[in-house]
């Protein structure tokens, strides 16, 4: 991410450039086709790319509607609702930083916008994370210090 940008984006590389050998993996940083998403995250809004003609949502970073080949796609807020499609509780975390929160759950949440959104999934009030469990959008700060869109499965107290 360029230092001149005003967009608050998750620099999950910990300030280091992402290198693979001698290659700088610059494409994995927010770039013009994805900054819209991260601008939304900074405002605590989850945005999907929409094709207006097909009324279909896509995630992430679609530049062309696979259905009608339109390139006139725009960012619009997600419904904020969803249900768990798949999940995995991570016991062996990828880094020492993430290990502070382990075990934690990552998974796919199916939203009414017909998107399968990969994110962190939390459970509250004694709820357990299971396939088809309803979940709501929230923004939470993770172990890496970034405030990101996540989904929360709520227990009985929230019903």
């Amino acid at each position, binding site marked *: 991410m360029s230092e001149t940008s005003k967009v608050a984006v998750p620099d*999950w590389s910990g300030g280091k450039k992402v290198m693979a050998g*001698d290659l700088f993996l610059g494409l994995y940083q927010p770039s013009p086709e994805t900054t819209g998403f991260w601008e939304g995250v900074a405002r605590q809004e989850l945005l999907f790319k929409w094709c207006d003609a097909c009324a279909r949502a896509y995630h992430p970073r679609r530049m062309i509607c*696979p259905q009608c080949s339109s390139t006139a796609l725009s960012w619009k807020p997600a419904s904020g609702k969803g249900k768990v499609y798949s999940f*995995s509780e991570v016991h062996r975390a990828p*880094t020492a930083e993430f290990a502070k929160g382990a075990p934690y759950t990552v998974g796919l949440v*199916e939203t009414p916008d017909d998107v399968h959104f990969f994110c962190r999934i939390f459970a509250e009030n004694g709820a357990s994370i299971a396939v088809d469990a309803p979940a709501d959008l929230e923004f939470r700060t993770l172990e890496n210090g970034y405030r990101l869109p996540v989904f929360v499965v709520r227990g009985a107290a929230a019903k």
Partner: protein
Amino acid sequence: MSKLANTCAIVGITRAIGLKGDKEKKTPLQLVVEACAQLMRETGIDRTRIGALFTGRMPRSYMTLQYSQSLVNELKIAPMFSTEVTSHGGGALGTLELSVLALEAGLIDYALCVTGEASPIWIDMIGGSANWEADLQFEAPYGPTTPSLYAQSACRYMHEYGITPEQMARVAVENRKWALHHPYAAMRHKGPITVEDVLKSPMIASPLRLLDCAPWFPGGIASAALITRADIARNTCAEPAYIAGFGQWNTHEWVGERMGTRGVEPFSRGPSMVHTGAGVAAKQAYAMAGITSKDINIAETSVPFTYANLLMLEELGFCAEGEGGRFVEAGGIDFDGGLPFNTTGGYLSFGQSGQGLYLLKEIVDQMWGHAEGYPVPGVKAGLVHGHGGPLACHSVMIVSKEPTC
């Protein structure tokens, strides 16, 4: 049946191994050159006759632009075609597929296909690989690991078909039995394991436990294969392996994107975590070869988790959709009497070292009685499956001792 069936054959296949503990550690380029040099010596086909060089993806431990040219330069060959074939691990067998096209068209007479990787010697594979299979911008910030990404598909597979942890564990148990006989298998000194051992092993990323996951091969492996037309092979090679059929299918990149892929096979019934391109590639390969899974005497797959082996047994046609668990439970891949499956010990017990042609070499070696590990008698036809990108890219190849049609 395609006109490509059996038009070409593998007339030599070699491999070089370097281990983590070796006094002089080897780079992937050293290993690849070693395998190629041995191949040219064994086949008597020298550098002046190589018409094409196709490599798998550039090794993580030897990242250089124009990787295939590094090898052209080192071997001092002058091929008509030189390129990397890199649909993740699907590219390893893709090298042979492109070779067949160029050979059958009569543009060249010999193609050299190579893969090599030595990352476990040079890179911290545990720390360095955790995010490698994730979309670094949209998935990695949530802290997934490679097992937790594959686990998304395991979760759906169990949910949709009732696959049990015990059925998954059976794959690890049977794969281990083969590994105990292989001089290079990563887990050969660890002894046999039981279903209970797998179920008691530490949870890594639910539902996957330690023994549901592939260990890294403790070193590097390079493999090299020489391919030519069947008419040349018949007159010059005592032990050819005919390329009877092949298929390849690539659908997406990253786990999250899988569910956004619609309107193409294998998602004609809608997005899915449990239908993969392996099924499409296998159908292509069987159709080309003019045979069915019943004619296959040995099979190798590159999937690195127990459940994925069950899923691949379905996708590769050895049992019906959703039946992988019951097939294995009923002894379908038993070391004693089942389909010889992952006969080096597989990714689960031989270990993972990039995606190479060494699985193909295992089949050719078994076919001609040169296996390094436990011998499988009477192999006439074998199937190998290469894959990558969490079940995103798939290649299937059927090789045969005699032309299948």
